[in-house]
């Protein structure tokens, strides 16, 4: 079956499902990195129904579904504390600041070097430029010496290694955070990624999950904050030389974990694969096109909802307080916000994601500028029962 070229060239959001015989034995469908998927067909009485169901499953895995929308609108919907996925993604913002920190608590024993600039250029920048439609990103890095984690690791005689239990992980972040300097960076939300090289006295250090098994990645993350990975120095390095031992960090291993954490923090969860399907995995950048589409959709919806509630609450404020005066520039911001919301809704309806996202961001910026205008304060907090007039007659 030859595909007509017009079908392929149509629009931006066409999921092309081609039904033909494949050579893969067990897999029924294949999902590719650019918006394409392949579903295997077969001869059967109920062939169309079954294949139709499978096509629906594949489409649901790749495109925008209700729970993605629910996650985006989480703070506007009634509270549902059951799922942790809804709390994990960062709120939509104009830009993000990503900081990579290397923590070396024991410089006397470990002389740690990491080629962070090269790793950022090779692995992180492609990912961020793929995500660049979602905001401005800036990346920086630092090395901190003599900074320990807040928790003392326990010794496990069975494996003669140290471990951090799962319930002590929440207390690790706070003592470190004050040293990170994240507040000085910028007004954008900051994501911190820490690489911790444990001290000689506490090497090797593993992180255990709830069941007591060591975690393969040796890393954990905290929603809306960032991630921490523990990098154990190879014990073979200690035999030959005297201290300090030179440690060259394997940036590929580290970046694999950090990029996975970055995806999770952005809410790009591992998609729900239908049974017996093969997922090609993201491209070299770490992000498939349809995942980016989903993210932009969710962000646009979230932005439009935020802008709408902001404008509504501003209008409610005007209704409540009779003597409020809106300055001209606040008024023009409100007009701009309303126009941007309408444009974003139109663009979303016609499927032009990129322009919809930009319009929704403009809507949020304008509505926030109008709501948080410093001039509104004086007019709000002057209740009528505190005014009096002295007149002489």
């Amino acid at each position, binding site marked *: 079956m030859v595909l007509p070229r017009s079908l392929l060239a149509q629009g931006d959001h066409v999921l092309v499902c081609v039904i033909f015989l494949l050579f893969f034995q067990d897999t029924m469908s294949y999902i590719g990195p650019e918006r394409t998927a392949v579903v295997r067909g077969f001869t059967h009485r109920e062939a169309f129904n079954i294949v139709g169901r499978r096509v629906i499953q594949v489409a649901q895995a790749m495109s925008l579904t209700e729970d993605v929308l629910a996650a985006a609108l989480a*703070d506007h919907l009634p509270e549902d*504390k*059951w799922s*942790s996925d809804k*709390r*994990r993604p960062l*709120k939509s913002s104009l830009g993000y600041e990503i900081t990579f920190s290397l923590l070396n608590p024991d410089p006397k024993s470990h002389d740690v070097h990491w080629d962070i600039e*090269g790793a950022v*250029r*090779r*692995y992180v920048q492609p990912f961020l430029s793929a995500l660049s439609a979602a905001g401005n990103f800036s990346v920086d890095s630092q090395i901190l010496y003599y900074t320990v984690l807040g928790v003392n690791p326990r010794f496990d005689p069975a494996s003669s290694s140290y471990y951090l239990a799962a319930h002590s*992980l*929440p*207390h690790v*972040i*706070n*003592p470190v*955070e004050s040293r990170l300097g*994240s*507040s*000085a960076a910028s*007004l954008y939300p900051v994501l911190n990624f820490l690489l911790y090289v444990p001290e000689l006295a506490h090497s090797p250090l593993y*992180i255990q*999950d709830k069941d007591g098994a060591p*975690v393969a*990645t040796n*890393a*954990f*993350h*905290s*929603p*809306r*904050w960032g*991630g921490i*990975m523990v990098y154990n120095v190879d014990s073979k390095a200690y035999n030959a030389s005297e201290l300090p031992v030179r440690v060259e960090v394997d940036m*590929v291993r580290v*970046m*694999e*974990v950090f*990029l*996975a*954490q970055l995806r*999770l923090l952005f809410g790009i969860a591992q998609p729900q694969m239908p049974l017996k399907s093969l997922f090609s*995995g*993201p491209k*070299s950048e*770490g992000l498939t096109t349809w995942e980016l589409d989903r993210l932009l959709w969710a962000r646009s919806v979230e932005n439009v909802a935020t802008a709408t509630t*902001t404008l509504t*609450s501003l209008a409610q*404020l005007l209704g409540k307080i009779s003597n409020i005066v809106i300055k001209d520039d606040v008024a023009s911001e409100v007009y701009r916000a309303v126009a941007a919301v309408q444009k974003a809704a139109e663009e979303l309806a016609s499927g032009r994601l990129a322009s919809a996202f930009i319009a929704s961001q403009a809507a949020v910026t304008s509505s926030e500028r109008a709501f*948080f*205008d*410093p001039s*509104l*304060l*004086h007019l*709000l*907090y002057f*209740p009528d029962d*505190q005014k009096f007039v002295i007149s002489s007659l």
Partner: protein
Amino acid sequence: MVTAFSLSKGLTTLSGLLLLSFGSLAASQIEDQAEQFFRSGHTNNWAVLVCTSRFWFNYRHVANTLSVYRSVKRLGIPDSHIVLMLADDMACNPRNPKPATVFSHKNMELNVYGDDVEVDYRSYEVTVENFLRVLTGRIPPSTPRSKRLLSDDRSNILIYMTGHGGNGFLKFQDSEEITNIELADAFEQMWQKRRYNELLFIIDTCQGASMYERFYSPNIMALASSQVGEDSLSHQPDPAIGVHLMDRYTFYVLEFLEEINPASQTNMNDLFQVCPRSLCVSTPGHRTDLFQRDPKNVLITDFFGSVRKVEITTETISLQPDLEIMESRDKKDWMDEELMEPLKYAEQLPVAQIIHQKPKLKDWHPPGGFILGLWALIIMVFFKTYGIKHMKFIF
């Protein structure tokens, strides 16, 4: 017959065991879900600590605020998430016999000033307007990040205020007041913009309960040191420093908080019991009707500490190590950039020109009228005093 009987007995025990295990499994699942349900939905913590009085004899208000600051920092909230407003500087006050300290216990047991206190709004910056700007976020764009409350919809905020107050108002700096209506409206503005997930409001002033009477936004819990019509009393005068060091309510709250560590499971009901009438003389009050969860399920560390939600990272994405060609190309670009920079930088500062610069000659102007007049006056006075015969020695 016997075998059948034993078989049936075995079956019943087996089924009993199965039921038990299912029951316990279901129970633990329900427990898990219930635990999750009662756990707070916050991901970060903020604290806004305000001391509104100045002058040396209000030392205790600064000590109150600093003791809450110290507990909050000890339990994990970083300085970047604390907005500390102190209306006067007691540690470096000229009347402080022990400079750089602020004590909370007499006999100077506990110095709450510490080594790394970070005051965000100090002295005359603590005004009603600034306080409301911090809460509502209507801050001029030039404000530094440390002076902002950058909370979001998943932040639990602790607001502690202390000073002199009355029925329905709190005095700021002896020159202005904030009323309970303004405070309630500010909290409503915060709720409209979803600037908090849950809010804990603690106030230690006379007639403190009047300040939380007017709240109407959801998810607010409030505590006060005294009811309307009662005064909050100060605790202990120190003869060496010469002033009262703490207020009673905050003193006992500090004692209570000193026993909390980041992992403790103490809940809000225990905080409500702190400082009964026998110790405090005033009756502390609290208000929980706007709060959705039951106070016995609210941990102290939900507001005073900063326990992060943490998840184990189980996935990685696979990356391919790069080809050499790309590397060398990148290196060349990088080196070019480095070479470029020194040239540009040196050009910015024309040192050579500055060093060899000659001083510019200013044009000479004859002295103006004022100078001439002054000299004429001096000469006239001279000749008047000493006589005109001296003129020949000058001219």
